[in-house]
């Protein structure tokens, strides 16, 4: 049966950019590709475009399916579609795989034209600012001078915020969800452990594992397991698994004893089979480096003085990795600049993962905001 609230069967496209891109680190990418998907129709005056920015492990495949049989729709399919909070009957929605990704956009696993081999360790470290620059090239390519809205959760929310600073005149609304104006030391510490798991995997080969025909699976697996612990709240893990045993009785072994272990191993294995280790290292670094207040001596209000967009900021009560306190810092800085801002602090049990969940009130909030934008 056809789901009328789905954008239906979708297909990715690729855009090639031949102009060199100067990165924040000083490195230059001579050329790059971005893979993207679009849903809905772009207006004649190209004013109804929404850019959806992905988080750490996201992709350009935000909504819809690749075939009728496809059991895995895009990662934010519950948010985007005809009649959904981001209504594709009204808006033209773009999902893009970020530069440095591993799902088609130019990244460490892509072939470096200069050597004919995968970039590997030679691929530069990218930042949120670099992603915004690359995304702006895609906007140029599609003829979009200004976005009706840019939206993202977590690291995606950081990109939406950065857009309002890098290109204040090109974004009219920013939806910054489960994000932070920078990571705390504890948050960066999780990233460092994840990176160390990858880097110390003997099959990492300094990042040039491609030519050895191996993948640092163990490192990626542990990195992902660690991540999943931090994306859920203690309560959510308790509700989901508690102390339930995998088998009828304990075996006094180090095999999977508890359901929780089974979940983490499954998530880790799945991720290690499909994600690029070099991409993961760089995505976590982009998170670490994001700190727009830094160039204003730590004054976030001064940093956000450039912004002109209207904002919807959302946080979730049980999210301890991107806690409501951090969203409130963003809200305060926006208020200090007398920008139009609404802040919803949603009661949710799921922790950081709540931003991907189909909660009715959450969706009502996004829908109400979107219905009022021009």
């Amino acid at each position, binding site marked *: 049966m056809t789901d009328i609230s789905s954008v239906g069967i979708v297909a990715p496209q690729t855009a090639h950019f031949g102009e060199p891109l100067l990165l924040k680190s000083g490195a230059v990418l001579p050329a790059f590709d971005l893979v993207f998907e679009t849903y809905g129709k772009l207006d004649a005056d190209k004013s109804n475009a929404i850019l959806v920015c992905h988080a750490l492990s996201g992709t350009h495949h935000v909504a819809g399916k690749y075939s009728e049989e496809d059991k895995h729709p895009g990662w934010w399919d519950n948010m985007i579609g005809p009649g959904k909070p981001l209504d594709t009957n009204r808006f033209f929605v773009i999902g893009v795989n970020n530069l440095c990704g591993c799902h088609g956009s130019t990244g460490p696993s892509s072939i470096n034209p200069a050597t004919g081999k995968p970039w590997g360790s030679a691929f530069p470290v990218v930042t949120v600012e670099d992603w915004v620059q690359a995304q702006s090239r895609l906007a140029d390519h599609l003829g979009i001078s200004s976005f009706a809205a840019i939206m993202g959760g977590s690291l995606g929310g950081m990109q939406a915020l950065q857009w309002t600073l890098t290109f204040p005149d090109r974004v009219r609304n920013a939806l910054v969800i489960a994000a932070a104006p920078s990571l705390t030391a504890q948050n960066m510490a999780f990233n460092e452990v994840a990176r160390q798991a990858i880097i110390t995997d003997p099959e990492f080969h300094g990042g040039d594992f491609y030519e050895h025909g191996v993948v640092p699976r163990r490192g990626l697996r542990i990195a992902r397991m660690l991540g999943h612990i931090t994306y859920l709240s203690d309560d959510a893990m308790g509700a989901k698994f508690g102390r339930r045993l995998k088998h009828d009785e304990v075996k006094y072994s180090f095999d999977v004893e508890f359901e929780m272990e089974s979940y983490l191993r499954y998530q880790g294995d799945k991720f290690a089979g499909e994600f690029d280790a070099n991409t993961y290292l760089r995505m976590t670094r982009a998170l670490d480096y994001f700190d727009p207040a830094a160039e204003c001596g730590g004054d976030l209000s001064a940093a956000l003085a450039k912004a002109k967009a209207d904002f919807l900021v959302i946080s979730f009560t049980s999210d301890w990795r991107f806690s409501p306190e951090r969203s409130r810092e963003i809200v305060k800085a926006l*208020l200090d600049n*007398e920008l139009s801002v*609404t*802040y*919803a602090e949603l*009661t949710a049990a799921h922790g950081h993962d709540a931003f991907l969940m189909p909660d009715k009130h959450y969706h009502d*909030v996004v829908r*109400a905001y979107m219905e009022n934008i021009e």
Partner: protein
Amino acid sequence: MTHVPAQAHVHFAEAAAERRDFAAIARWIAPGAKVLDLGCGDGSLLGYLRDTRDVCGYGVEKDDANVLACLQNGINVIQMNLEDGLSGFEAQSFDVVILSQTLQAVQNTEGIVLEMLRVGKDVIVTFPNFGYWRHRAQIFAGRMPVSRNLPYQWYDTPNIHLCTIADFDAFCIEHGIHVSERLVMTDGKAVSLLPNLLGSLAMYRFSR
């Protein structure tokens, strides 16, 4: 003459009275002012001030349904519990901070008034006057008052800090608060004679 059900008359009268309350608040606010409305509900006061005074307004509200209503009404709202203080707002960053008919329902009444004075150059507080003669009459008859402004029973009321106009006047003196204007209303009309007896709604405008 068209028949109008009695209920509809009451509803209309309430709505009209409420608008007069809004209109009185609006008269104390300069066009284009930056306004914070604490406990803003569905944002109707801010909507009124936006339409009549072109204010740059933000509401503060803790209730999910009200936050959603504000969004639907196109009102900027910050979801938080004002009992936690206003630390998310800079000192003297608003021209006016409003607490409309919420004073009697807050826990930390004194702290919130002081926070309003910190954040706002001007403060507007409105509350139901517990000294209104209809309330006194009900107490005299031995019952807790129930009225249009105090529509709850003693066992389900959110109102925990009810006060009279005389109480609030004394509070202002004790806290060194300069009351620049006071307006007392009953059924939407200003009351000047014996306000603490004849007024059902008190409106204060004050600053440090």
